[in-house]
């Protein structure tokens, strides 16, 4: 089952209470992108869902507090399985500086508003296009590295010229 799934579009896992407006909104949003979506009540249920699709690209979206429960164990686990996560911050998230840092270190995309989540989905879809997620991921990383190197070189050149 899993092997044949790797070429498919990513599946979106939305974590949160199903009756919550956020979850409903995310399900609609995933629908706009024509992505399969699975709502999960909590991170434990989401972990089961991750395991059910071991070879498929998965995107997890949830509110910051929900996904960062404990010490960010869920996000760490998702990272180990190569799953991309996006957390929507709320007003209180700003108080939890350490947790935000942890999330950033784990490569989580932090979203301040819906537009950021759209951007996350668009970006992931572009990255995981027809050639499959693994190759594109590597290309993107190399591209980013090259850009950073170029920037550094330009800066160094400026300093030398100056």
């Amino acid at each position, binding site marked *: 089952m899993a092997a044949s799934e790797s070429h498919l579009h990513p599946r979106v896992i939305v974590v949160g209470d199903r009756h919550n407006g956020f979850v409903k909104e995310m399900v609609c949003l995933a629908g706009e992108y024509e992505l399969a979506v699975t709502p999960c*009540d*909590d*991170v*434990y*249920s989401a*972990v*089961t869902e*991750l*395991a*059910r699709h*071991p070879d498929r690209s998965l995107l997890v979206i949830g509110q910051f507090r929900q996904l960062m429960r*404990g*010490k960010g*164990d*869920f996000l*760490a*686990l998702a990272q*180990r399985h190569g799953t991309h996560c996006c957390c929507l911050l709320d007003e209180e998230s700003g108080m939890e500086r350490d947790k935000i840092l942890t999330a950033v270190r784990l490569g989580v995309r932090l979203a301040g508003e819906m537009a950021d989540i759209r951007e996350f989905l668009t970006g992931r879809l572009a990255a995981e296009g027809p050639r499959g997620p693994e190759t594109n991921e590597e290309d993107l990383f190399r591209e980013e590295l090259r850009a950073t190197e170029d920037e550094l070189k330009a800066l160094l050149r400026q300093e030398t010229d100056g």
Partner: protein
Amino acid sequence: MGNGADTVSPRGGSGRASPRVRSTLLVGDIGRAFVDADSVRRYPCDVAASLLDGVDMAARGDFAVVGVVMDGAAGHLHATLKALRKGTRAHIVLLAQMHEEPIARRLVEEGREGSRLADEYMVCPTFLTRVCDRVASCASGPASSSPDGQAQTPPVGTLAPVDPTQLEQRLRHLEHLATTDDLTELKNRRYILEFARQALERGKASRGRVTLLLFDIDNFKHYNDVYGHLAGDEILRQAGILMRRCCRPHDVVGRIGGDEFAVVFWDDPYRIDGHTGQDRRSADTDHPAGVISVAKRFQKEFGNAELHLLGPDGRGVLTISGGLASFPRDGSTIQELFERADMALLEAKRDGKNRIYLVGEPQSDIANIR
């Protein structure tokens, strides 16, 4: 809780559980559940230190048995068990401390077959082999049965192989005998003391409350002497049944000797309805309102109990006297709570019986508490 680095696998290094057939997964702090946790590497089992890792490993592996240590899982237990049910077909065993037994029993007994959150529970500390041996019985059913369903008899002169299922049943029977009062089927004194000690430890760690009610049946000797010991036994049994019915599922009722009973009330840390599990205080006293209302209900129901062995005049004659002490208000050890509840009980007797006194509040019969 830990992360993936905390997982150990005796047969394949650490970390991810590769899909493997029919073994045991232990989830949580096994040091709190097993006497021989140090020798876990000798057993065919994997360990996930955190609940999340446990759910992950269970869903990705093929385990026959998943043992979940309840201690430390409060607030996450239901979500974890639901996820385990969704992600694996394994036999789920709850590893409960003694004070968690009522909750474990409820999780195992509630719901329909197949939709229960757990399949069985074991009271800790226990031995690793008890959980690991469940693999054999879960995989093959009763080991002593032949294919045609007939029990196999070992040839004369050979030792019968140990059937894990039968062994488990015998152990459970022994546990039952060691902790149960055979007349009333309530918990016995030994169990109540240990349960109260553990509940108190948890209360201290989580700022929860523990309340002890000691009560006895007024004029019990009179009923015994006049109506005979059979009637006396029936009164004790009825008292136990009624008290059990009046209590919340997680409270524990025991007979601690003669006609004396003890009830341990405590805050349920595993509630899933959004409450903290803490009972609100009564308007008139610091004692928990829920406990007072349980005690009042019991007094009323016991008074109305119909006991055929006492004849036509047997209805409405039975009364109890009791004393009620709460942690942290009235004491911080089990001994202190027992002593103070006992003193309140004696005071209730001296003042004319048929009343339950609150510790530290003289003349404070719960009948006067709103």
